């Protein structure tokens, strides 16, 4: 396996965390992983994205020109990254915020109403985890248990209160694709 994901959205939509959870879970399963963030002023309110590679082999370049999967949480992210997706690649769209067509027919598109689901669960903040559930279910690159362990590892201190909700959001996400 050599999965190359770009996860993008507005700053605050939790894409950095989503990427770190995948990387951490990958590490737990003994995979080679890298997580590379976009950084700088764009983190403060603009679009933020990270690149995550999960591979059976040591990873050379942590930069990715042509990802195998894309998660787009908003329209600008979809417009920016969709053209870079490999043929037959997987595009995960947050359909709560994206009402446009991605403009490619040679790829597989998953529409996940992440915001609506998160809202139903009672906290919009877990939209990223809903999306993560859909991503893990669809790609099958890592076990759901590894992601849950990653959540337990990441959500410590104050954030611990959110753990139960996050696991619910994750499980819900896995049912959507």
């Amino acid at each position: 396996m050599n999965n190359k994901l770009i996860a993008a959205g507005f700053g605050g939509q939790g894409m950095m965390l989503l990427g770190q959870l995948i990387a951490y879970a990958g590490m737990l399963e003994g995979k080679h992983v890298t997580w590379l963030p976009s950084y700088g002023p764009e983190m403060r309110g603009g679009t933020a994205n990270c690149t995550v590679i999960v591979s059976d082999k040591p990873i050379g370049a942590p930069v990715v020109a042509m990802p195998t999967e894309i998660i787009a949480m908003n329209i600008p992210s979809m417009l920016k990254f969709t053209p870079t997706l490999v043929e037959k690649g997987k595009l995960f769209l947050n359909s709560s915020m994206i009402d446009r067509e991605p403009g490619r027919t040679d790829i597989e598109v998953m529409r996940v109403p992440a915001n609506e689901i998160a809202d139903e669960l009672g906290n919009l903040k877990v939209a990223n985890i809903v999306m993560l559930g859909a991503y893990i279910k669809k790609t099958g690159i890592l076990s759901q248990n590894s992601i849950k362990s990653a959540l337990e590892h990441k959500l410590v201190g104050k954030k611990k209160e959110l753990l139960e909700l996050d696991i619910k959001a994750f499980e819900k996400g896995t049912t959507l694709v």
Partner: protein
Amino acid sequence: MAEKVLVKGNEALGEAAIRGGCRYYFGYPITPQSELTEYMSRRLPEVGGVFLQAESEVSVVNMLYGASCVGVRVMTSTSSPGFSLMQEGVSYMAGAELPAVFINVVRGGPGLGDIQPAQGDYLQATKGGGHGDYRLIVLGPSTIQEAIELVMLAFDLADKYRTPVEVLADGMIGQMMEPVEFPEMRSLNTLPEKPWSLTGAKGRKPNKITSFDLDPYKLEEMNLRYEATRKRIIANEQRWEERNVKGADILVAAYGTVGRIMKTVMELAKEEGINVGLFRPITLWPFPYERLEELSKKVNTVLTVEMSGGQMLEDVKLAVKDNAATPFYGRMGGVVPTPEEILEQIEKIIKGSESA
């Protein structure tokens, strides 16, 4: 071995320093290394160390000068413009033979530039940087795990040769995360004695530390001593990685982040039937000239790839001489080359030499 942890490069650099016996950090925030400064502010008090946020990089380097004078392992971290500001002090430290470790998480330049990864500070790092005749030992990590090892090595080399050492990282190494294993914490009892340090003239003659002598003959003597140290370093400390160099169609010279990207390029090239060899200097100073010269005799082309306009290229040319062609491919301004675009360059070169 220890348990694997997923860690951000900047934080790994800081933790490596602490595990290498460093308890003193003076710094000034600058992107893309600020997480390192923040990490040290949290972590050092836990291990009985001292963190101080200074008023400028100029002050930082002079605080390092002071701390090194009194014999402790000390470091700072900064990014390109900040390291430029420190150059005066680095020159003084080189002249005063004061060990310390500088981590430069390089960003795009010149001037204010940007905050994305770059390799435009190679010449500043390897050719002195400040005024006068001196060189720093310069280590160029290409992964976070290697960065951990090199930071720890940097402290040992600094003490061994009484010289400032620079770890030349870049924004990508600073910002990315990958799983690493940390070595055990170095016991402070095992650190080398420093009888030359300024700890107070108790039961001995006063120690004096300076880069200064108005008598040109005496200053020349000091310079000859520095030169002798440099020769020892050149003889003992060259480090590099070579991969797939036997029977390679083309040899690529690259360091740091580009050195790591090259490993993906080599795989892609193999699928295209091209055999790419990699020469990756780890000590950028001392540069492994002799080994590269030897390798260059077996290929037609040594391609240098950098995130700069061609800086290490100058050292590659010094090593390769007329043995092979020395084309260059670089991206600047903080643009990181993708494996695909580097492969395209390699294909062009191979095609060109076939048609010729």
